[in-house]
């Protein structure tokens, strides 16, 4: 017994070492690339030429699709759709972008050399007069990722996590044991970085992603996980990178189906689409962040009648909702990859109504966890 423990311990240690080495190698490669860029910039400037940097432009979707005739477009998860040239000679907005890029790179180089981490907000406060706003730093981080073909976490720039998890799962995050399984109805923070996760063990049958924290708390309160072998995750609105990476990691590691429950309105749909297709802002990394097989559990416009919900919960789509829905309908990925989702959104727009997940609790407070979710999953009523 002791021998087996020892072997397991040794294997874990070996695994940790390997993980560390890989991280160090990746940091060294990135540092080499940064130096390569700087050397090249210096060479160009010394030769009396402008340093001109090619940045690929990525797009995971476009709005060119027409309902009647979905035209083929160049959108792709892997290939760029165009390029921007950052230099001293062309558009001055591109010079400004180059300026911010190099300044953020200066911070990244220091982080990688010292093996430290910081948030984009930390970076912003180092040079607020150059960056003007956090969004500018955000864009520069994207530019660096595109330039060096890496992901954000490679740069040691860490996000602030807002996602929550509960249910039949346990894992180790760095030195910390996250044993959700011992208290399945309690909410745990989603780990900042999946690189720190190991020893994932789960006995769940599926993963349920809910749009809102209120719904997550409703399920916790109803002891949903106690009665259903599942893992529940919420990104609290539009999901951040750690939530998306964590979900993707679980789906890949545990081979579990994932269902998503969002409000029946255009914003709920957009959140759902972010899980499945990724966001435009992080299009260059969408293929590593998205969960292509996620199923849409609800709530559908048709659920309102199917589950005899009271009329008072039904709201009319505002002009802004309509505009949002119409712009989503035009996205090419719905035509290409999820025509049933598109039809459902079209139905919402045609009926001109919306309602929230909480409407399901109107008649009975626990209707969502007692009836709606188990029934839908059991009957396979999802898209």
């Amino acid at each position, binding site marked *: 017994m002791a021998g087996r423990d020892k072997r397991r311990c040794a294997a874990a240690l070996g695994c940790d070492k390997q*993980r560390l080495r*890989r*991280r160090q*190698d*990746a940091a060294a*490669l*990135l*540092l*080499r*690339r*940064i*130096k*390569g*860029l*700087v*050397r*090249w*910039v*210096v*060479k*160009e*400037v*010394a030769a*009396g*030429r*402008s*340093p*001109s*940097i*090619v940045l690929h432009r990525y797009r995971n979707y476009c709005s060119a699709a027409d309902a009647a005739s979905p035209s083929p477009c160049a959108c792709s998860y892997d290939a760029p759709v165009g390029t921007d*040239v950052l*230099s*001293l*000679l*062309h558009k*001055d907005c591109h*010079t*400004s972008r*180059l*300026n911010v890029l*190099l*300044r953020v*790179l*200066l911070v990244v*180089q*220091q982080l990688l*050399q010292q093996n430290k981490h910081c948030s984009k907000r930390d970076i912003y406060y180092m040079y607020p007069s*150059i960056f003007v706003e956090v969004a500018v730093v955000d864009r520069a981080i994207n530019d660096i990722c595109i*330039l*060096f*073909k*890496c*992901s954000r976490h*490679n740069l040691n720039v860490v996000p602030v996590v807002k996602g929550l998890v509960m249910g039949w799962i346990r894992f180790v995050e760095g030195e910390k044991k996250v044993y959700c399984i011992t208290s399945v109805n309690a909410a745990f923070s989603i780990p900042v970085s999946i*690189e720190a996760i190991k020893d994932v063990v789960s006995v769940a049958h599926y993963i349920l992603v809910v749009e809102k924290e209120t719904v997550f708390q409703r399920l916790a309160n109803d002891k949903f996980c106690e009665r259903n072998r599942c893992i529940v995750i919420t990104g609290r609105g539009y999901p951040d990178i750690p939530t998306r990476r964590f979900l993707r990691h679980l789906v890949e590691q545990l081979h579990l189906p994932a269902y998503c429950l969002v409000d029946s309105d255009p914003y709920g749909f957009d959140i759902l689409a972010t899980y499945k297709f990724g966001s435009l802002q992080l299009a260059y990394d969408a293929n*590593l962040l998205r969960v292509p097989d996620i199923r849409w559990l609800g709530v559908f416009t048709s659920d309102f009648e199917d589950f005899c919900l009271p009329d008072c919960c039904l709201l009319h789509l505002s002009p802004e909702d309509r505009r949002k829905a119409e712009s989503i309908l035009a996205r090419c990925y719905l035509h290409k990859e999820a025509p049933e989702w598109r039809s459902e959104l079209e139905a919402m727009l045609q009926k001109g109504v919306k309602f929230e997940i909480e409407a399901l609790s109107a008649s009975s407070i626990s209707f969502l966890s007692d009836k709606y979710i188990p029934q839908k999953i059991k009957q396979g009523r999802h898209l």
Partner: protein
Amino acid sequence: MPSASSPHRKLLHSLVYWAVQRCRMSESPCRLTVSLKGPAEPASPSPLRVSVSDTGVGSKLEEFLELDDLARETPVEKWDGTLLITTTGINDEAIYRYRFNLQEELSSARFTKLATTYKNHATFSGTEVCLCLSNEADADDFILWLVGFFHKILVLRAANLACELFVEQIGSAESRNVCLPQYSDDVHHSVMASSSDRLVCGLKDYALSHGNTCDNCDTCTLNRDLLKIGTGAANNVDRRKAKGLHVEVVILIARTASDLSCWTVLYFEDFVPCPISQSSFDVLVSIDWQSYGFKLKGATAMQECQGSQQDRHLVRKALKSALSHLKADHAGDFLSCHGQRVREYVPDLAESIAGLILSSNDKEFQDECITLLGLGSNQDVSEGLVQSSICEKMVRVIELNDTKENAEDNAPYLFECEKLDEDSQLDEEDGDEDMNFDF
């Protein structure tokens, strides 16, 4: 304010114009003298006596008939239409005198030949036109205009032409005299110097003598060396046109104490100051000033001359060539608005690059970059030095490429990560291409 096209001005402009043309035709050194005598008191009944004389070729008198229209539209009380003309050609044996009365309806009475004086084999040529103009309340303005007009003629420094202006105002109390002889400055403007070189010289004097009468330019620079000059010229090469056209443009920039800068355009045709033609004015307004670091806030033509059939293309070409010349000689001062905006980023860019070099823990890389910058790897190089070296080089790149054409030429050198990987893979033992992704 008197009308810019008052009959007095039109008349003097024409008389001087022809005198200048006669001088140019003679192709030998000539003198142009304008003299004006009048009472000092405004609205005095005594008239202004004007004489325009030149030593150019003799007059054939035809040009004066062109004043018919002007005489007809001018009230008799302003000018009675009389011109006394004395002229002789180089080969003439006599000096001829004529009286023209352009207000006269009867053609037989319009032209009178007066007494002839024989030259006694003397060889000279020249013309003098005398006339009397009414002394009106705005006589002072007219005199000011005439002085300004002469100043402008002097700007051209026309070859073989010496100009003089005498104004004498005689009054009971005091007399005022203006004497404006040809400048004799320190700069050689020999007959051999090109017309644009002479124009540059004249324009400098004009600027230094506060000749730029624009309200904002009250403090013209007094240092000749601080004036910035750009010259350009364009020729009409179309041989089908009988009359070739040659356009020369000189731009002179004088730094003023205030930032409010103002341009005055002096426009000449056939070596005489003229109101700018509409087509040339349009060219001025439509030039892409921003490419040369200027902002056109507005433009007003004081007078518009419709008659001129200028070749827009030539004016544009000459103007652009002058602007390019100005920019080439003073790269930093005439950076395009785009270049100026980009230049503002240079200190920050240089700080980032210097920081990336000096904060690197790779000494070899640091030395390499410092050597590339030409700072020498052995000496102890400060961050400030690296920064200023990068700054300087970047500013030069911006200045040298501050035209659309240059910017496009510079495009082929691009940084792409693929190229970097090709280089870096050489010193990598194993290809770890995919490990920078998900790990």
